[in-house]
């Protein structure tokens, strides 16, 4: 799990996932 510092009371987390032969960094922004 990758995280970034909380800004504007918003959390941002991410995961790098392989999709077939490519790589997607799936990033989710959610309220704190």
């Amino acid at each position, binding site marked *: *799990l*990758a*995280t*970034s*510092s*909380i800004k504007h009371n918003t*959390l*941002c*987390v*991410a*995961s790098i*996932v*392989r*999709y*077939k*032969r490519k790589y997607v960094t*799936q990033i*989710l922004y*959610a309220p*704190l």
Partner: protein
Amino acid sequence: STVAILPTSLPQIHRANLLASGLPTAASISPLVNKKSKTKWHFGIRSRSYPLDVMGEIYIALKNLGAEWAKPSEEDLWTIRVRWKYDVSQKNNEVVPDLMKIVIQLFQIETNNYLVDFKFDGWENSRGIPLPLSKITDDEMCTFSAYPFLHLTTRLIMELAVNS
């Protein structure tokens, strides 16, 4: 080719033209500063607290969130194997796995600097029905959606942030 960029549409020129036209409010409106603050990423969450306190905080947060965990083995007190029911309204009661497994592990980066790492560890379903073995080829194995995992970790991080 007569393709061109319209000079009067460039922000600096537009602003100069508007100010020259003497519009009173024009001077008070500043351009959006699109600071490309590149997101700084970290692995997991860092902590400078005493290791056992960190583990205690995590267990309390997991308990508050209704998650369960396997009893840690003596030789590995710094790893928590979590199982977390993530129940969503099913469509036509399809058998969808609803127990997400996560491994939470504490690492020491340097003296007084620790890292809590979260790893997705697959799904189970609470009715114990065995998961259909993935019948697709290895190449297509990777149709994995991280969003349920990301959602539960945000819940846990929020709980830890609120408690601390």
